[in-house]
């Protein structure tokens, strides 16, 4: 009994109830665009997930992560509903710019098929660019870091180049590359290349001397030294750059898809925002957020697996 109470009397549940109560408040202004059914349905769905999680996940740490995230989502929904339809805030006159959650969720649901295509196209673009960048930056960084142990200089150069926004390259990419698609990929490549290169080089420079000596006394060949010793030894650092590169890639997705793309999340957001349809644009932004979260989660799993030899 006490155990059940402990699992039920948590702030996220309180927030859910608060959310339902807030629905009962009258709408302040006449809001034709909102469709509260969608908001309530989402909240109900999340509450079911919350209850399932509270009772099914045994490990405290993992359960708390889920319940905390859901609590934050409830809090955000409450804020959103209050700010857009229940209170008279100055911005509310411009409903087009501050659409209520129901409207956004409705768009999200109705456009779901299109959204899936967008996700697919955007991920294809990002992965293509990102993998090209990593496939060049990591070996190149290993080579530079290892061969110019004075690599500090190369490090500064990489810092300098990485401070240039990849947006600058867009006109050049369009002029020099055969297709618009290639130019979009190029933007993503440039976004992730420098952070990965810089972190790889600093990783190599920080490999402990005893590891290098140990490998040297085993008489390893050049290739083995680079890819079986230096690469894994600098992997923790390399991952820092890979994480950064991934974030920057997603930030630049909108810009990359401005170049001649006809689908994709960035194109979608940009397109609707340009036409003043903020409800749909916001649905797109939320989709990007969800995609980034899922990708980050998977990326962390990969990182945990590849670095399982670290304490």
């Amino acid at each position, binding site marked *: 009994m006490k155990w059940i109470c402990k699992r039920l009397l948590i702030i996220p549940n309180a927030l859910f109830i608060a959310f339902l109560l807030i629905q009962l408040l009258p709408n302040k202004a006449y809001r034709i665009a909102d469709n509260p059914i969608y908001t309530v349905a989402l909240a109900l769905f999340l509450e079911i997930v919350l209850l399932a999680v509270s009772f099914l996940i045994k490990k405290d740490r993992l359960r708390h992560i889920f319940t905390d995230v859901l609590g934050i989502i409830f809090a955000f929904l409450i804020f959103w509903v209050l700010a857009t339809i229940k209170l008279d805030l100055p911005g509310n006159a411009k409903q087009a710019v501050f659409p209520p959650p129901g409207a956004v969720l409705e768009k999200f649901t109705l456009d779901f098929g299109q959204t899936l295509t967008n996700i697919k196209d955007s991920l294809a673009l990002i992965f293509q660019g990102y993998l090209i960048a990593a496939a060049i930056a990591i070996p190149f960084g290993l080579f530079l870091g290892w061969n110019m142990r004075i690599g500090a200089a190369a490090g500064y150069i990489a810092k300098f180049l990485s401070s240039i926004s990849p947006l600058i390259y867009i006109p050049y990419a369009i002029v020099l590359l055969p297709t618009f698609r290639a130019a979009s990929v190029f933007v993503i490549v440039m976004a992730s290349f420098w952070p990965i290169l810089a972190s790889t080089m600093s990783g190599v420079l920080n490999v402990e001397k005893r590891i290098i*000596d*140990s490998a040297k006394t*085993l008489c390893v060949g050049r290739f083995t030294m680079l890819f079986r010793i230096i690469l894994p*030894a600098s992997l923790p650092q390399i991952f820092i750059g890979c994480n950064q590169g991934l974030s920057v890639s997603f930030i630049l997705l909108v810009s990359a898809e401005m170049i001649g793309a006809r689908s994709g999340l960035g194109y979608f957001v940009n397109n609707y925002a340009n036409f003043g349809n903020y409800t749909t644009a916001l649905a797109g932004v939320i989709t990007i957020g969800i995609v980034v979260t899922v990708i980050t989660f998977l990326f962390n799993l990969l990182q945990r697996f590849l670095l399982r030899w670290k304490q």
Partner: protein
Amino acid sequence: MSKIEIKNLHAEYTDKNGLFLALKDVSFSVKEGEFISVIGSSGCGKSTLLGVLQGILTPSSGNAFIDGRPITGPGTDRAAVFQHYSLFPWMTVRKNIAFGLKQVKKNLTRSERYAAAHVFLKKVGLTGFEHKYPFQLSGGMQQRAAIARALAMDTNILLMDEPFGAIGAKNRSNMQELLLTLWEGDGQSRKKTVVFVTHDIDEAIFLSDRIIMLTNSPGQIAAEFDVHFPRPRIHSTIRKTGEYINLRNKLMTLFYDENTGAAAEEEYAI
């Protein structure tokens, strides 16, 4: 011909204060199959000496020879166990050993390497730990795995730098006995030539055929001692003999002598 020959070796480091002389005019030789220990107080240049033999440090003058040929770099005729744990942290224990093996015996298949790893892990008492990563092992276990790696490579020369430095006293004498057992082998195969660095006098006496004592920095040869105890040696029996006590006293006196290191060693102890 001696297996290892060192002639008028000087070794220097360059740091921000300029040149630092770590080894000064060191000459000695090691016979094939001989087990020698190099002892001296902390910072006297023992690791530097081994670095030269490993081929990762270049002497500033003088020469080091193996089988009469000057050392120009690391070689697959030598295996090393380092003072600080030297397993590769991203490889499991078995992988570490198989990796070392692969570098010296290119023609072995992967399963042959794993089989050899299994045999040597068994010898050092690490059966069942094949799939652990180094961070999951204690310091002593890591050092045993490093020894297994060095032995599995089956090189003629074994260079060991205070391999038991970080291991507790009880485990330490077990490890010493284990090392001797493995070195003596079945009596059939040729014995390896071992250069063993330590700053523990008892360890040096127990293990070696000969002890080379270095002075304080810059390291020079202070004295050489032959150690004649019959093998196989067992701690409990050797320790009681008068010969042991005599030799130990001689070494102690020299070790704590003004020239060789009394002051410095005591300062270090504080």
